[in-house]
């Protein structure tokens, strides 16, 4: 395995909010839904970004301007080159999800990895059952990927929850959902995923039917650097998608020892 990235020309940079853009490059890589790439600019560094499409021709990545590298990526323009290596990680467990009703819940930029799975479902519609999508955003200004959401609205049941209407887990709690044949796919801040999981548990969905797409600092992406370890599992190599019953005890252990200063 090598750290050598490949340069790609940027085909488009679409701005959604003040600090989020969708970076699209032409590349003949078709990542599995839920996988991620290491994108970089020489001289500035690398950052892990989720793949947001299921497309043979393009790689789409949602870039939020939060750090050194993402700040530089954010300022790139059409025609500039960006260095990419990947895809890395296990994506969503397609075989396990096949034939099931799917419930997607995502918050903020957590929409990125989920997007690739929704695109996959829309391309292979007959392999899946009912699809419900819940996205949480802070307010109207923070809504991401509206063009895709409008497209999905024609195929699936999509709800957008803004904070003034209540957090996404509160909205979910009030809904009457039939989850008997469902699998849930979650991505967002850990505190949000935790609350959503609790709501789903109450509605009868067990932890082995819930998948979390996790965020850690994935530096090497090949299970060497130790940065993304959640206790004994590498987020880059073993994840970033984990079944919740698998990752739950590990997260709880870490959280308990973080309380002691």
């Amino acid at each position, binding site marked *: 395995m090598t750290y050598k990235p490949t340069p790609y020309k940027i085909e488009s940079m679409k701005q959604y909010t003040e600090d989020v853009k969708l970076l699209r490059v032409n590349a003949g890589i078709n990542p599995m839904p839920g996988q991620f790439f290491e994108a970089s600019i020489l001289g500035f560094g690398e950052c892990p970004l989720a793949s947001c499409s299921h497309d043979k021709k393009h790689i789409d990545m949602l870039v939020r301007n939060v750090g050194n590298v993402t700040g530089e990526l954010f300022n790139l323009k059409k025609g500039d080159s960006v260095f990419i290596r990947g895809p890395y990680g296990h994506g969503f467990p397609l075989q396990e999800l096949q034939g099931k009703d799917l419930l997607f819940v995502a918050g903020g930029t957590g929409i990125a990895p989920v997007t690739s799975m929704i695109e996959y479902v829309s391309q292979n519609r007959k392999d899946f059952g009912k699809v419900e999508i819940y996205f949480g955003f802070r307010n109207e200004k923070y809504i991401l990927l509206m063009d895709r959401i409008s497209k999905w609205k024609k195929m699936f049941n999509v709800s957008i929850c803004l904070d003034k209407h209540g957090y996404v887990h509160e909205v979910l709690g009030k809904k009457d959902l039939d989850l008997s044949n469902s699998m849930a796919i979650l991505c967002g801040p850990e505190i949000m995923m935790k609350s959503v999981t609790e709501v789903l548990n109450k509605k009868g969905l067990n932890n082995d039917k819930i998948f979390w797409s996790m965020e850690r600092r994935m530096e090497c992406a090949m*299970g060497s650097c130790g940065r993304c370890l959640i206790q004994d599992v590498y987020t880059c190599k073993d994840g970033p998608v984990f079944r919740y019953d698998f990752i739950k005890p590990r997260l709880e252990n870490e959280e308990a020892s*973080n309380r002691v*200063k």
Partner: protein
Amino acid sequence: MQKILSKNKLTSFLESLMKNNQVIAPVREADGKASCFNIIAKQDIKNLYLDKLTEVPFKQFLIPENEILLKSTKGKLIERSDSKNKKNIVFGLRKCDLNAIKILDKIMHDSYYIKKRKNTILLGLYCTNPDDSCFCNSMELEGVENCCDLFFYESNNNYYISVFTKAGENLVKNLPEAKREVLLNIKNKKQLPNKEIENEYQNNAWEKDSNKCLSCAACTSYCPTCNCFDLKDNLDINLKDGERIRKQSSCQLKSFSRVAGGKVFRDSRLSRFKHFVYHKISYFKKSTGRYMCVGCGRCLRVCPTKIDWVETINSIKRGK
């Protein structure tokens, strides 16, 4: 196959290796300086440090503190050109050092490491005087010799050399053969008999140690198997040239698990300290089938507040 080398001929043996190869051996260059593995020339042979385990482990030659992976100029990538190096011959590796290399081989998957590893010949040396912090016997030491090319046993005034590979055989082909049973067992005062700590994560005993911890990362920098690193880009002041380096880092540093936006996943000293101990004794065993600790005791010797986590595990286990 076994060969014999009289002790007073070690100098000439090493000198003969230097002709075509780069020889690395444990040395202490001056009083007060740490003993470490270094590239040696003829005049350094008198400084060889073979009586005890070196303070600094061998890992710096496989995973240097700062290693340039890629270079770039004006937005173009230049692959690192590794000049055709001479082979590295490392003399004086203890069993624990060899064990550590075996473990690093399991963690490091990149082409740079693999290339370096292929270019290295390992000459092991039997350890005659482990000190009070050593507990290598408790950490899967059996059969470690197999991963080196030659293994030197010291007996009276001779080295009895076991040959394990073709590359090793070539180095000693001029030495006379020998046949002698070398049955040796390293004896440690310190032991870690019971390593079942998976269910002890919430035990309060860890807090006693972590309260003393300064998060200085000395344990991880002296550990022969700790490999955690950053990938970092440096931009030259002319804003055109840059390089991507692999820089050694440590799980004991707070910034290590920080993500964009500022969230730190291992925020407390306790969680970072336990991460070190559990990675060595539990996590790695679960995923690869062997312990990541080799029992060299370097972390115990180097700790400024004398944290003895081995004793903590023992006391937890005794308490049960």
